[in-house]
């Protein structure tokens, strides 16, 4: 076995090489510039907020000091940051796998990659706000011990958040059922806290951090204990995951099948294959479950949160995602999901229009399915938004699916569904996919905002445009089929991993 003294420099050197190569190979220049601008912009916003928080808070919450406001919002902020982390941050498991056959202790591998995972933008960006805020506002209050304990608590929160995220991802991969129970319980608790006006989370946050600032050690010890638990549990979870199988190939248990009428011919077979893809592969299945979760439990929470739903834009986003969430997320990789077996289609007598049509049917059915599931919630909690929900059903089925397919038919990145992990695995996604949300989500939101003085007319136009999109499905199916035909070889090469 290689000694730790030799192991760590070796692994560090490899990681640096891998990171440099990834930076060079991943995106084109345009996307690099776009991402760079976005990163600089968000860093600037955070720094400005941290340095001049009093100017914003004086207008919004004039009766409270900046420190009071931040103290009572810290837990909520970290829960939100945790959600963002959960979407983007990866576990180091896949980085460890290539080293497992080498004479290196697993403990050393786990320790190294757990530590290396801390070099994440998610851990540095919050500091852009908290350090200047601490220097400008916290240091002005209380004792020096209190100041140090407060910033120490922030560091611990970042650490705890980092490792708790790794732990939760491990739970999702190994015991998805447990993960969904936790998620449901969390959303239900947050819903009750918000709906009943208890404000438990705000009070707890305020209590904890004001005590820490006053120099009381109990709160800090609690945070230390929680952080230690998150580090230990995520490390154990990671080590265990290396011993066992991925657990993603639970195919034997998922071979429930269904037939399609013979008269439906090849199109029926293709739709069936799409649905089986979703059911029998872990990552697509997670997209389905999370969409269902959003359109039911999370929607209850959002619809009952009257304050948050004050704006037209927010209502529009809710309408867009309530019926179109699955299409927006899953649909972007509609052809990427087929990358390992795309040749099974293009080497056979499968016409591109049939292939596109089958995928469109699945996406449109998903819009209808999510619409039907969430309609009772709209009627129960926000009857005034039912018309919006209807309008977005048509818009999503007729326009969102078109926009999503436009991106999907240009995808050339391989997605290995047989080996991919869970939902929050972004293999196959590029910055282009994230940015695509802007032209997909913004137009209807902006349009409804512009039409806010005549909301009925706005919704009617939105629904009509969507309906026209549905009626012209045949037309744009042919358009996408032609695009697929012209890009066939490039897609095959990309899906085979030979080109991007």
């Amino acid at each position, binding site marked *: 076995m290689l000694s730790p003294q030799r192991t760590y420099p070796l692994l560090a050197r490899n990681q640096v090489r891998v990171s440099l190569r990834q930076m060079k190979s991943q995106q084109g220049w345009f996307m690099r510039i776009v991402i760079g601008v976005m990163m600089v912009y968000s860093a600037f916003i955070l720094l400005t907020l941290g340095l001049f928080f009093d100017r914003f808070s004086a207008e919004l919450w004039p009766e409270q000091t900046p420190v009071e406001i931040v103290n009572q919002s810290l837990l909520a902020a970290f829960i939100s940051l945790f959600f963002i982390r959960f979407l983007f941050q990866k576990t180091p498991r896949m980085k460890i796998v290539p080293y497992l056959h080498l004479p290196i202790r697993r403990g050393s591998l786990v320790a190294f990659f757990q530590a290396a995972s801390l070099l994440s933008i998610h851990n540095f960006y919050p500091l852009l706000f908290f350090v200047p805020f601490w220097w400008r506002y916290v240091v002005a209050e209380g004792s020096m011990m209190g100041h140090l304990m407060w910033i120490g608590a922030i560091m611990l929160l970042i650490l705890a958040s980092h490792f708790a995220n790794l732990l939760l991802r491990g739970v999702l991969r190994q015991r998805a059922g447990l993960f969904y129970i936790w998620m449901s319980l969390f959303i239900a608790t947050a819903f009750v806290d918000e709906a009943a006006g208890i404000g438990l989370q705000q009070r707890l946050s305020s209590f904890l951090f004001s005590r820490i600032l006053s120099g009381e050690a109990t709160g800090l010890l609690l945070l230390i204990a929680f952080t230690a638990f998150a580090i230990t549990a995520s490390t154990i979870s990671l080590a265990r995951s290396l011993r066992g199988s991925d657990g993603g190939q639970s195919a034997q248990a998922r071979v429930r*099948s269904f037939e399609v009428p013979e008269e439906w011919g090849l199109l029926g077979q293709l739709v069936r294959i799409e649905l089986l893809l979703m059911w029998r592969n872990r990552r697509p299945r997670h997209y389905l479950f999370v969409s269902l979760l959003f359109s039911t439990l999370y929607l209850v929470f959002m619809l009952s949160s009257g304050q948050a739903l004050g704006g037209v834009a927010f209502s529009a986003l809710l309408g867009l995602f309530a019926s179109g969430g699955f299409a927006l997320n899953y649909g972007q990789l509609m052809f990427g999901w087929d990358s390992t077996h795309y040749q099974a289609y293009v080497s*056979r007598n499968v016409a591109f229009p049939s292939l596109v049509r089958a995928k469109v049917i699945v996406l449109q059915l998903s819009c209808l399915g999510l619409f039907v599931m969430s309609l009772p919630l709209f009627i129960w909690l926000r009857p005034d938004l039912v018309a919006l929900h209807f309008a977005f059903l048509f818009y999503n089925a007729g326009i969102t699916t078109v926009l999503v397919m436009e991106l999907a038919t240009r995808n050339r990145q391989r997605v290995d569904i047989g080996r991919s992990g869970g939902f929050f695995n972004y293999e196959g996604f590029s910055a282009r996919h994230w940015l695509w949300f802007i032209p997909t989500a913004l137009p209807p939101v902006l349009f409804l905002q512009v039409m806010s003085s005549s909301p009925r007319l706005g919704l009617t136009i939105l629904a009509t445009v969507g309906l026209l999109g549905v009626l012209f499905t045949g037309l744009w199916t042919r358009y996408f089929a032609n695009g697929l035909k012209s890009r066939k070889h490039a897609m095959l090469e990309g899906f085979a991993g030979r080109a991007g």
Partner: protein
Amino acid sequence: MPCWRGLQDVRVEMNKVVKKFGAKKALDVPAWLLEDGEVVGLVGSNGAGKTTFLRILLDLLKADHGNVRMDGRNVQQDAGWRARTGSFLDRSFLIEYLTIPEYLEFVGTTFGMSKREIAAGLEPFESFLPLSRIDRKRLIRDLSTGNAKKVGILAALFVQPEFVVLDEPFANLDPPSQIRLKQLLVEMAADPGRSMIISSHDLGHVTEVCGRITLLQHGEIKRDEETDAKTLEELNAWFSDEGISSAT
């Protein structure tokens, strides 16, 4: 060298096909024909260009120059040939999250077959892959390499296509399956309306099944001759010499 019988019954025609990967020339075929009813074995060392040859033939890879015509029509412009072609190159031809019956039903449907026709089409292949004895709920991705390959070959053959393309069909198969496959290919090759191209490293099998051998080396056709009693011996000698020259 070329052993074409005539141009009136050409099934596949390769014209001035060149394919490069970077600076390396992977394939350079000025002209190659496959006639109706012909069974051609494609042989060559690793990296000789066999799979590139087949992928360009099936329009899965774009040639830098030249074109492939099937039944007189450019394969890139007219996809009608796909309805008459059964092919299996590698595992990416399989949809791994389907069960074997589901996959075969899909393939049969692409050839316009009804469920009854699919069942009837599979019967002659029962000795190659006994579908009546397999676990019908097992997904293809859970099959061994050999069994997955059998599924792919079966999918290419049971639809009784006019043109068959197989890449290394004997590799990874157990000896009984190799023998059965050889018998099946010989039986299918007896149909005068069917053409086949089979790439293989197994010189014994390929010379038994194929009436003509095309030998590739460094992307170029070095030999293209009808098979006779001496072919196997000559190929063995060729590859022995090639092994010695590449080793030195």
